């Protein structure tokens, strides 16, 4: 069953079309990855699903009901974890969750139980009486999640929930997302970290210029990429490589360097590996290892949009 159905959704800001006739479906029980560079229309779409923006045209149906006409019903079944923290620094963790859960009609003992449950879920039960101003970035992110789940929504939208936090908190949040999903919650998850999306999402949509340009499972998406090869080259030392010298080689679409590792994306039909290696050696680089990898989501994204997800 589809929990969310979007048909012909368009949002215009003056002459600028932020979301352009978008259609997609999210099935009940899945973790749906929503990928797109900044300005691709991802946040505008999420804001329309969250009733923060009104669509210019098109339809959003949540649990088979029109979202605009049944706004209250939709909101009752929706939880949102915004990209920017949405918590009150002057109120304790307990009070934050209690306040937001209270807006969903929870009262008395039920409210108290749900608040404690939510804090327990994100590992902040022992910090219930502390104010977020004394929390680490990761703890604030977890509280941000607790505020969205206490009313037990059927669909949770998580917009970049792991931005700017330490690996330990990130792992905690990813585990929490899986746990939420296992408890029956459907999740729409956006992230700049492709490996996160690959790791937890059952289906993924790639949005660019306000349109869905690809949708499917990770395997389905990577299977569509047959004309690109992803060459990983490890250098002995970390030295700066003139990437332009690599992209000038016929067939090379783009090249990136992360410390002593190079990622070169090239047309699969062009045999240019020797020229790439020669170019590197001529520039004085010492090569430790070379590996041609299977296409991943990064490759898919680059092939479809012409840019890397983090090139914003």
């Amino acid at each position: 069953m589809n929990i969310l159905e979007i048909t012909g959704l368009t949002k215009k800001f003056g002459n600028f079309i932020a979301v352009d006739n978008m259609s997609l479906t999210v099935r009940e029980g899945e973790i749906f990855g929503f990928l797109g560079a900044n300005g691709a229309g991802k946040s505008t779409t999420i804001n329309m699903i969250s009733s923060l923006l009104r669509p210019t045209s098109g339809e959003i149906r949540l649990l088979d009901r029109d979202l605009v006409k049944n706004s209250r019903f939709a909101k009752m079944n929706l939880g949102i974890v915004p990209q920017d923290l949405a918590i009150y620094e002057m109120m304790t963790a307990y009070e934050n969750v209690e306040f937001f859960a209270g807006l969903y009609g929870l009262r008395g003992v039920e409210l108290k139980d749900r608040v404690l449950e939510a804090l327990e879920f994100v590992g902040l039960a022992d910090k219930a009486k502390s104010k977020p101003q004394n929390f680490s970035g990761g703890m604030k992110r977890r509280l941000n999640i607790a505020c969205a789940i206490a009313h037990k929504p059927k669909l949770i939208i998580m917009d970049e929930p792991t931005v700017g936090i330490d690996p330990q908190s990130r792992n905690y949040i990813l585990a929490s997302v899986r746990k939420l999903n296992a408890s029956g919650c459907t999740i729409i998850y956006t992230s700049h970290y492709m490996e996160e999306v690959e790791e937890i999402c059952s289906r993924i949509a790639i949005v660019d210029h306000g349109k869905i340009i690809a949708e499917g499972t990770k395997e389905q998406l990577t299977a569509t990429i047959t004309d690109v090869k992803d060459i990983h080259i490890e250098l002995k030392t970390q030295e700066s490589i003139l990437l332009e010298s690599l992209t000038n080689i016929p067939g090379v679409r783009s090249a990136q360097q992360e410390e002593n590792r190079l990622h070169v994306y090239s047309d699969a039909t062009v045999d240019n590996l020797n020229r790439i290696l020669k170019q590197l050696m001529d520039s004085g680089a010492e090569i430790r290892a070379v590996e041609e990898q299977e296409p991943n989501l990064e490759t898919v994204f680059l092939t479809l949009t012409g840019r890397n997800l983090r090139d914003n």
Partner: protein
Amino acid sequence: MNILSIALKEIKRDFRDRRTLLFMLAFPIVLMLILGLTLSSAFNSGATVSGIKVLVQEVSNAGPLQQGFDAFQKEVKKNGITFVPLQAGMDAKAEVKNNHYTAFASVDKDGISLYSSNRNPIESNIVQGMLTAFTDKYNAVAAVAQHDPAKVQQITADASGASIVQETSIVANRSPGSIDYYALAMSVMIGFWAALPGAKLISGEIKEGTAVRLMAAPVSKAEIFIGKIVGSVVQSMLCVVVVVLFSKYVFKAYWGDHMGLTLGLLLTEVVLATGLGLTLSYIFKGGATMGLINLIIQLASFLGGAYFPIGDDAGKGIMSTLVSLSPIRWVNHAATSLIYGNQSTLAIQVIGVNLAAAAVLIGVSALIMRRREGL
């Protein structure tokens, strides 16, 4: 129920902001104490007047006027005013200039002329007032005598000094001392400070990122709007009440017999200020709003007499207009009239004006908010 939750959250959050609390409570109380003690002498309404001596030159052919004037001299002597005849060789004007005498009066058949100096304005005015009263009465008697001399006796029968020298007071039974004045002035001033939290009502939620979560919750914009305004008004009013009670019971400031109406007046000022802050935050963006509101508050405080009393005759033209535009001035005046004159009319009028202005401002904010997609 959501309105109540939002209002309570607003109050709770604001009261935990120690800086705001310190600003809203400690500052006016300290200022009240400092200004009240420093400027106490400026609020003394008493003035001691004694030993008024008037140099007088009487011309022997002044006729009935001279007789009347002699009677007048005897009468006013009972009130401590002495008429000293001008001696030969004395320069009357020089004597007055040198402050040996308050004034110099010359009586002849054409009337009385008075010369006084501005070195003792109160004493000079008293002498002038008494002489004016005397001459008015003399002229009346003279006019009656011309038409019906028999009636003169009837008029002069009660021509005692009491009708010439009548003690009246321009000061009501009770007038504010310095602490009384600043207790009211500071309370009215912090009532207007409600514009500051008012300006942060919506912009604060946007800045904190919580506007998104509020809008995503099953709460209408109207509930958010009303809840936040109610919370902010209650929080600001509680600060005003604390300052009022502190001044009343710790500084023993006088708050009159109409505390309920006085607090009602202050409450409408708080509502007005909250509406003003909210509207300005919708019209102007970012730091400009707070800068503008601070400027308005300082101007309104200054013109409203929060730091020192500004009389009714303060300035003319644009200054006078600016003074009359200060809500702090309206409320201060109305409250003073209520507390010290037991006059509730002005207070009720100001309550009406405050509520009407607040309704317009809050209405404008509501309209802007409604037209926006978010908060």
